[in-house]
Each structure stands twice: as structure tokens, then as C-alpha cells.
């Protein structure tokens, strides 16, 4: 494999504590040298990328995407989804198992990672916690892990039965896997299509109460607590509960408390939950329909607060592509979800960094080092020597306008069409290979 020299850029690598002008040398898919500006030796035949005036950072890591394959290729394929990831600066994505069929097996896990899928960036499959996401029978976690699964979840089909969730946590812990829960007590959300509250009432839509989310988060934390007290950690692994896409103030508060109690409970927030509120449903826009739904302004503010004060461990997109015809229907009948891979960095830089003054390194950490650490993705989320050559190069100052029609994703279901973004991705490198140039 060839050598790549990224010259003249400002390297920000929060995990390695680097923030300054550096040259980065990639060889055979790995970082082989970090040198002062102009100091890196130019190997013969090396490709040079001039990053003068640009920020160089570890490739972004999204631990919550729906790539729709196998089985739902009309919405997205692994090829198109990872092309969108590359365009958004992501070099590693963790793919949810609610495919057709669901990812219950080592075979599907390997199929998703096979070269034939044409993936632009590294795909880390997340396995189904229970067979067909039914919340009844556990899958074989050891076999899934051996095939490459990095966590288990029944995303979209929360595990409601205490005894099953207890067993999922225990088995996952034994196998050193994280458990990701989409926290929604579906007994409280039947027929609901947006956040419960005055807006839902006025629009004549049934609402999902915040309790449906935080009630299940609290239940899960109780189960983790019981597991820890029962001595499950003696086997060497600590149970890890990761709360997907938190959207309510109380859920973030519950995670905060669990951490104070010494538990390994983490959470992620999606850009739409720190930027939008239920008001964005407007005249029944199906691009504002997702699950968990857009919440109240107070909840939105709590997401921002949680990000700024550090209780939120990662920004994850919940990239959920749907074909146009699936979204061009009555609001209540439309599927949940929006795309997010190409807007996460631009929105995070625009709002978290530029507007709310979060240091650039911390924003990047939430988008790379921290999510990589959450799922134990070794050699990702940092550009320390020896790490994978996963790099994003962007212009932190450049404002640009996102146009959904230009998206690399197969689907264009986004509420951010026409939004001003900050930080244009100029180049994305996955394991030493340039996979996107902007």
C-alpha cells in the first residue's frame, strides 16, 4: 500500500492530547509518523495532501446508523450509506441490526463486512440482542462477537421484559459486549407519532410521553445495579449499558446519577435532538418524524447542557434513510427517522462550537474518540502512531449550505435541507485510502 503524507494541517487529536500544526504520515493503512510541520520525511512515491489552513482530525465514528442492508436496499445500501458517511467525515460506523432479516447471526455479520458490499468506510455491525428483535430468545453473543459484532441491541424494539433484559445484560457482560437500548416503553406509545404535549394535542396527534423513555432508562439502570451487586463484575467485565439517542431531560439526569453511582452507563445524543423541538413538526412534516420524537424546548436545552457538561458521551446520528415514497404519506403513517451522516459535523461545528463555544477538540472528541472508546473500537478515534489511518480533513471556518439533493445517501429524508453548516469536509481517509474529496 502507498504512503500518504498530510502536510501543513492543524492536527487535533483529543485522545492523544495533540492540538497543533503537524504532518501526518500514513502507510499501509496505519499512522506511522506524526511530525512537526515540514519535518516528515517524504518517502519516494508518497502521495501528498496539502492541508494548509485546514484541520486534520481522527476520522469520525458514528455508533448509530441504519445501513438497511441486508434486505432494504431501496432505502440505502452499505455502499451508499458508507459513501454518505465518508462525505460527512466518518470513517467508522456501527450498523444497527434491524435489517431484513435481522442481524442475528455470524453469517449476516460477516456478509455486512464483506468486500463485495463496496463499503467506503469501516462498518462495525451491531448484533440483535434477541432473535428477530422479538425480546424473547437471546442470540449467541460469543458467536456474534467472534464474527465482528461490537455490541448488541434490539434497537427500535426495546426489551420490555425485566427477565429478558437482565439476561441480555448478563450475557453481554460475560462476552465483553455493550448493550445498547432504544429506551421506549412501547406500552405507552401505541399509535403515537410525536412528543406528547400541547403541540401534539393541537395537531390532533397521539403523543409519546417522556416517561416512556426515561422510565425504561431508569428500569435498565436498576437492572445494571442489581447485576453489579450480584457480582457480575468479578468475571472481569463491567456491565455496560449504552442509552441510544437520549431525548428527554430526565433520561440524561438518570444517566448522570448512574455514573455518580459508579456504573458504566453511557448515552448518546443525535444532532436533531440538540437542535430541533416538537415545533418543527410544523404542518405535519414527515422529515420531523423520528423515534424518539423531537421533544420540548426544555428537553432540547437539557441535551445541549448534557453535551456541554460532559454527561453525554457521544454524538450519534441515528442515520435512518427512507425512500421518498415512504415519507410522502400521512404523518401518522410515515416511518420514523431521518438521515444524518452528512450533516452531523457541519451542525455540530456550527452550533456546539461556533454558537455555544464548545472547544473544537471537545466537539471532535464527541464525534470520534469517545464513541470509539464506548464500543471499544481499538485504533479508531485517534491518530496516535500505530492507529488506523482514519482521517478527516476539513476547513473549520468555511460555511456551506447542505442540499439534500446532493446527498450521497440513497434517501433524502432530512429536516436540514438548506441549513447553513460550518466546517466543510475536504478529504476523508479510511485506513490510508482517500474515500472522499470535497
Amino acid at each position, binding site marked *: 500500500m502507498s504512503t500518504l503524507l498530510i502536510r501543513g494541517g492543524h492536527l487535533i487529536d483529543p485522545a492523544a492530547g495533540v492540538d497543533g500544526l503537524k504532518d501526518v504520515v500514513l502507510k499501509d493503512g496505519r499512522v506511522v509518523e506524526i511530525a512537526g510541520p515540514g519535518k516528515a520525511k517524504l518517502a519516494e512515491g508518497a502521495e501528498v495532501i496539502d492541508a494548509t489552513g485546514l484541520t486534520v482530525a481522527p476520522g469520525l465514528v458514528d455508533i448509530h446508523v441504519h445501513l438497511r442492508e441486508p434486505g432494504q436496499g431501496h432505502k440505502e445500501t452499505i455502499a451508499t450509506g458508507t459513501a454518505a458517511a465518508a462525505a460527512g467525515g466518518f470513517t467508522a460506523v456501527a450498523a444497527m441490526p434491524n435489517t431484513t432479516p435481522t442481524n442475528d447471526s455470524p453469517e449476516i455479520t460477516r456478509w455486512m463486512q464483506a468486500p463485495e458490499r463496496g463499503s467506503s468506510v469501516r462498518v462495525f455491525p451491531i448484533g440483535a440482542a434477541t432473535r428477530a428483535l422479538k425480546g424473547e430468545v437471546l442470540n449467541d453473543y460469543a458467536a456474534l462477537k467472534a464474527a465482528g459484532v461490537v455490541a448488541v441491541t434490539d434497537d427500535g424494539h426495546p426489551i420490555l421484559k425485566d427477565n429478558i433484559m437482565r439476561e441480555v445484560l448478563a450475557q453481554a457482560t460475560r462476552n465483553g459486549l455493550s448493550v445498547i437500548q432504544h429506551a421506549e416503553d412501547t406500552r405507552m406509545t401505541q399509535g403515537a407519532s410525536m412528543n406528547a404535549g400541547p403541540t401534539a*394535542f393541537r395537531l*390532533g396527534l397521539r403523543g409519546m410521553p417522556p416517561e416512556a423513555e426515561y422510565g425504561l432508562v431508569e428500569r435498565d439502570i436498576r437492572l445494571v445495579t442489581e447485576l453489579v451487586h450480584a457480582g457480575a463484575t468479578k468475571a472481569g467485565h463491567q456491565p455496560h449499558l449504552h442509552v441510544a439517542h437520549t431525548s428527554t431531560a430526565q433520561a440524561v439526569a438518570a444517566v448522570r446519577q448512574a455514573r455518580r453511582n459508579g456504573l458504566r452507563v453511557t448515552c448518546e445524543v443525535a444532532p436533531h435532538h440538540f437542535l430541533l423541538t416538537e415545533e418543527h413538526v410544523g404542518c405535519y412534516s414527515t422529515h420531523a418524524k423520528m423515534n424518539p420524537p423531537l421533544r420540548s424546548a426544555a428537553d432540547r436545552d437539557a441535551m445541549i447542557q448534557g453535551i456541554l457538561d460532559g454527561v453525554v458521551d457521544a454524538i450519534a446520528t441515528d442515520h435512518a434513510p427512507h425512500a421518498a*415514497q415512504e415519507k*410522502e*404519506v400521512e404523518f401518522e403513517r410515515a416511518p420514523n427517522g431521518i438521515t444524518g451522516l452528512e450533516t452531523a459535523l457541519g451542525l455540530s461545528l456550527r452550533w456546539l462550537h461556533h454558537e455555544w463555544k464548545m472547544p473544537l477538540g471537545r466537539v471532535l472528541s464527541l464525534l470520534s474518540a469517545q464513541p470509539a472508546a464506548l464500543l471499544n473500537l481499538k485504533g479508531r478515534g485517534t491518530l496516535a502512531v500505530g492507529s488506523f489511518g482514519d482521517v478527516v480533513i476539513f476547513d473549520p471556518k468555511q460555511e456551506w449550505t447542505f442540499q439534500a439533493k446532493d446527498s450521497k445517501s440513497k434517501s433524502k429524508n432530512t429536516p436540514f435541507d438548506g441549513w447553513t453548516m460550518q466546517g466543510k469536509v475536504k478529504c476523508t481517509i479510511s485506513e490510508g485510502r482517500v474515500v472522499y474529496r470535497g
Partner: protein
Amino acid sequence: MSVTTLTLEDVSHILTRASFLESEDPLERAKRLAKRKIALLFYESSTRTRTSFELAAKGLGSDTTLVSSLSSSIEKGETLKDTGLTLRALGAEAIILRHPNSGSPWLLEQETRLPVLNAGDGMHEHPSQALLDLRTMLNHLRPGVTEVGPETLAGVTVTIVGDILHSRVARSNMLLLPRLGARVILCGPPPLLPDVAVETGPGIEVERDFERALEQSTVVMMLRIQAERLAGLQLDLEEYKTAYQLNGERLAKYAPKALVLHPGPIIRGLEITPEVADGPQSLILEQVHHGVAIRMALVERALTQKGGQA
């Protein structure tokens, strides 16, 4: 599509045109929209709304066609978008839509770019009903008034009783009447009237005690319990009747002068007793009658004006 898209000027214009068209010579009136094409697209059953929209459109001379979900390609899985585009291709110049999903008129308008009249969308709104209710009230409380303003209904208290949660009629009325100065009291048990309803807009209050609400009422609007939308909610109907049924005794004792409205269909013996429904204070059939005039004004507006439709 929503009463909120209508200014008070729009409302005045609709009321004025309704009176004018109602009194116009039918042969002259039938020239107004002669041979214009209007489609009625009904995904839910309806007696009053469908018939009065149809009579209104025909009264103005237009050709109407009715598409209902049970006798069309909707049964075969055709989407609202494609059904709308088909109607447009067949020459429809406006669509009157009744649909079980809230917000569906916006979808239809966006996809067809035709004027869409909302004949009831899910639990959301039923604007033409609120306008005909307003006309009925004005006829008794402010006779001759068709130009309305923020003070027109000052001093008037309208109590809406029963299944507010599932009622599009309640939403349209509670969003419209306070803008004309009326006070709206919502009355019903918590499962059918969540507290959050008061936040729908200004001028709205909740009073759980029916008799206390009645004492303050100039107008009492009774609602049917929408069994088709209860979604598993269990209600003790005997208990409901004890607390919220409008019977002769209650009316005589607490609101002997109030006007009694009901958007229909009424379930006699449940939310309202026959003696009240058929009694002297009941304006239920008068409401139905006003429906045609209001809907003539709305249909005319849809085909002759740009801007927000009801």
C-alpha cells in the same frame, strides 16, 4: 385547512358570502361555478358534511364527483398522493377531503398543488364545522352580524363538553371562538380531556364539573364519544352519563337559557337525552342547515381566491 389559517377578515368574508349566496336566486347562483369540477374525497363515513359540501358545490353550479375509500382504488392500496394526482388529472380544480389522519390536507395540497378544503382530518380540525357553529351562534346572539372582530363574542361563554381529546370539532372551535372574544370552557373527564388542552391557545379553560360549567354557559356544545378513536381506552358509560350527560333536568336547573349545539352524529341517551336534543334550546338541526351556506362560501372561495383555505 385549519381555522388558524383564516384571518378574522377571511371569516367575515365567508360569513358575508354565506348569507349572500344563501339568499341569492338559485338559478343565478348556479352560474357562479358552472361546470367547474370539484372532487369530494372521503376516507371516512359522513352524512352531514359530505351532503352539505355536495349540495353547496352543486348549488353553485359545479360538477362534483365523490370518491370514497370503500369503492375506489384506495382499497387496492393507492396512496393519498396518487389518488390526488389522479383526481387532478381528471380535471378536479379543488378537492374536499375527509381523512382519518391528522394533517392529511397539507399532504394533499403539497402533492397536488390544488386548493384543498378540510372536511375533517383525524383528531385535528374540522374548520367548516366551526364556521357553521359560529354562524349558528351569531344568528341567535348577534342577529344580522356577519362582520366579525375581536370583540364580537365578548361576554359569551361557550362550553364544549365530552370527548375533547378525539374531537376535531372541539379543536377548530377552541382555536376560532376566543379570537372573536368568546371564552371557551372545556369540560370532560381526564381520559377524554387532558390538562394540556388549555395550552392549545388563549381564552381556553378547563372545568371538570359539568354543572359548574353549565352555570356559566351561553352556549353548550355537546360532543359524541368517538368509539372509533378510543384506541383501547375503557370508559364506564354509566359513570360518564352521570357526570356529563346533558339531560332536561340539568339544563333547566343550570342553564335554562343556554343554546345547545352538537355537531352530530348524536347518540341519543348517551351524551344528550332526546328531550334536550329535540327541545326548544337545541339548535342541532339549525347547525346542519347553516352548513350548506357556509360551505357554499368556502367552495366559492377555494375556486376564486388564492391563499389559505379552510
